[in-house]
């Protein structure tokens, strides 16, 4: 397998350019951050204490590029990338992953699976883990990916996940990212859904200095349903740049995207989303909502919700709002003896919880909430 992607990708990597300001997919984005030309591959990872395991999940631990503990019959480790395709502005970075990644997980499920993968990132340099998840035969798959820093070194993680969901199968995936504030994360998240397949793909970002995330969901099978969720809590010095595309290629498909950003300090967020409906994809039912909660007067939120509809007989809508916690809400809570500061926190937490509840999985919800609360404790 190793020759499949690496050598053509290397050629492609050489011919492509790093992102530039004028690209529409980098509008408002910090395109300079994406230039990784000066980076060297990351070294050996360091062991570190691990978080509490999740009940009933098989745990794999990866230090930088090496699987150090855990095993699972459905998972094989491959020594290179499966070749992500960037359709949302970063082909150079996707080619970089394809050309240089040394470690990927190949997850094939024909029956139910609960998998927890912990990425412990340490040291300076470029780390390129990847993962393919294939669910077939009506399998219900739950995957948790946790990105954690074990030191203060500025690491750059370029990661790709490709989720292929066969007919009648289901995948619920939660990614939590708590990297140190010097690190960067670039993440490609692709998913393809066949007939009556279901997906719930959620991310929680609280760490890293800069995150660029490109989520591309292809709903290719009729009656398939894709849910995309995100909660982020950036503060001063952090910028989260999320680009999404919900691609409907078959009749009677459904997708629903809900992104909520709570901005502290001088945080900066960019959301660009597109619902794309192919010709003939009648009966599409697609929604997209991005909401920004501004906790301070120095935050900066850019939203670009988009629609491209090439078929009639569809129901599509998007909405985007930006505001702070309303005075009425604060007043209501103050009237019940809660301090203004606590009232604000409560409302803000409720704002994030609304997304997390959509996971409809107690264990995953508890984990996401734990990550969110950790950030609230230090950000406010």
């Amino acid at each position, binding site marked *: 397998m190793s020759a499949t992607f690496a050598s053509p990708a290397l050629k492609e990597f050489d011919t492509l350019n790093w992102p530039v300001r*004028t*690209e*529409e997919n980098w*509008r*408002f984005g910090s395109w300079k951050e994406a230039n990784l030309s000066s980076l060297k591959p990351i070294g050996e990872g360091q062991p570190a204490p691990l978080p509490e395991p999740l009940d009933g999940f098989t745990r794999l631990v990866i230090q930088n590029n090496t699987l150090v503990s855990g095993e699972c019959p459905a998972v094989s480790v491959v020594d290179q990338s499966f070749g992500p395709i960037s359709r949302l502005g970063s082909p150079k970075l996707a080619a970089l992953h394809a050309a240089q990644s040394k470690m990927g997980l190949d997850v094939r499920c024909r029956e139910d699976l609960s998998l927890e993968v912990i990425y412990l990132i340490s040291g300076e340099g470029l780390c390129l883990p990847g993962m393919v998840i294939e669910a077939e035969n009506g399998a219900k798959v739950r995957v948790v990916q946790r990105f954690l820093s074990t030191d203060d070194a500025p690491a750059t993680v370029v990661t790709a996940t490709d989720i292929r969901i066969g007919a009648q199968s289901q995948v619920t995936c939660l990614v939590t990212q708590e990297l140190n504030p010097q690190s960067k994360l670039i993440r490609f998240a692709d998913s393809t859904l066949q007939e009556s397949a279901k997906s719930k793909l959620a991310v929680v970002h609280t760490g890293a200095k800069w995150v660029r995330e490109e989520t591309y969901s292809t709903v290719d099978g009729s009656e398939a349903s894709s849910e995309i969720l995100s909660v982020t809590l950036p503060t001063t010095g952090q910028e989260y740049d999320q680009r999404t595309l919900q691609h409907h290629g078959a009749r009677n498909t459904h997708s629903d995207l809900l992104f909520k950003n709570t901005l502290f300090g001088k945080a900066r967020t960019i959301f660009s989303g597109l619902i794309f409906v192919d*010709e*003939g994809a*009648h009966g599409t039912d697609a929604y997209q909502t991005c909401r*920004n909660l*501004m*906790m*301070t*007067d*120095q*935050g*900066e*939120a*850019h*939203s*670009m*919700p*988009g*629609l*491209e*509809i*090439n*078929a*009639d*007989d*569809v*129901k*599509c*809508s*998007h*909405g*985007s*709002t*930006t*505001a*702070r916690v309303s005075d009425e809400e604060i007043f209501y809570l103050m009237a019940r003896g809660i301090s203004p500061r606590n009232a604000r926190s409560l409302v803000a937490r409720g704002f994030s919880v609304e997304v997390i509840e959509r996971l409809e999985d107690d264990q995953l919800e508890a984990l996401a909430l734990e990550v969110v609360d950790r950030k609230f404790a230090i950000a406010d």
Partner: protein
Amino acid sequence: MSSETATVQQVALEKDDVGNFFYPEKHRYDAGYGLTEKTIDYISKVKDEPAWVNEFRHKALKIFRSKPMPTNWATKDLDNIDFDAIRYYLSDGATPKRSWDDVPPEVLETFDRLGVPEQERAFLAGVEAQYDSEAAYSNVKEALAKEGVIFVTCSEGLKEHEEIFRPWFGKVIPTGDNKFSALNSAVMSGGSFIYIPPGVKVKHPLQAYFRINSENFGQFERTLIIADEGSEVMYMEGCTAPKFETATLHSAVVELVAMKGAKIQYITVQNWSSNVFNLVTKRGLAHEDAEIRWIDCNIGSRLTMKYPGVVMKGERARGEVISIALANDGQHQDTGAKMIHAANHTTSNVISKSISVGEGRSTYRGQVHIPKHLKGCKNNTECDALLINTNSRTDTYPAISVHGNQHVTQHEASVSQVSEEMLFYLQQRGLSETQAMSLAVNGFINDLVQEFPMEYSVELKRLIDLEMEGSVG
């Protein structure tokens, strides 16, 4: 022949008839094909312009040449414009007539057929009628002129009212704003200059009518409207062109300046024939407590790219864009709005409704910008799209940037179609499918149509009925 088919044919004829006729060209001045420094000097000479205008044009030409086509975000159809196959200036002299009696017969007949003199008598406070590059007629009611209202062509404005004109000219939309504003600045001709003195409230609308009569022609009118403190004005523009085989270019620049407490309403009913590239830059500058409203309806043209904007520079200024677009076969209506909040407590509202018929494509592009260190800004954006046929297409690309936590913005967009149930219900009551569809479409935009003055809203409904002919079944 059944009576229904006869009516349909009649209606189709009538629809084509609205603007589809032309007279043989009789131009005293013709700058020829293509655009060079010589074209510009020719235009300046015919118009007997001051040196600063000629310099301004030359600078603009350099900028136009240096700027790339915006095809990185806009449609590739722009590449089909052949700038060398266009004539940039055609006129019969640069001075408009003050009386219809002095207007050449074929020009008078043209505007008569379009109903312009009739409307002037009925309800307008002033009219300018532009025929190819120059206004053939321009007049404002005497009572208004006495109050100090200036309504002249742009060329007259820059020569005779330089002290008011020049400080604001090119300030709202700088030459280098985009490739087509630069093109307009290089070869501008025609358009209006309006000045409303402080406190004057013009009760009846002022109107401009733009007519293209010649083939392979580019119309580049330039309009500047200044409403001084506390004044109010409503300006309406209409346009038509005959259907030629070749592409025609219309690239206007419209600048509005509303001083403290002033109100400007700018109404457009765009009904260009389907060979016209309509690439227009429109922006208003609203000072303290001022209000600028763009009411925009796009039915015609091959490609329209138009994003009226308001820069809210003074506290409590208000901007609004109300937009209706209808894209039929072979048409792309790429419209939207730009709301730049530059002062505290400024509010803006955008409501856009588009209808795509047949293989038509309608696009909404919006920008809302609230920079740092402001408070109390509000924006509301709603865009709704209606798709009539299987091949119809619609896109929405808004961008909302908010800095700080003292603002409220909301954006909502939806796409839908006319439901089978609704059509069935109406057909049950004896309407034909086409009538039912027309009724549904008119219902979809009804609340926006009401924002237009009476005379226009009636016309608008009729135009939409005509467009809906033959779209179903």
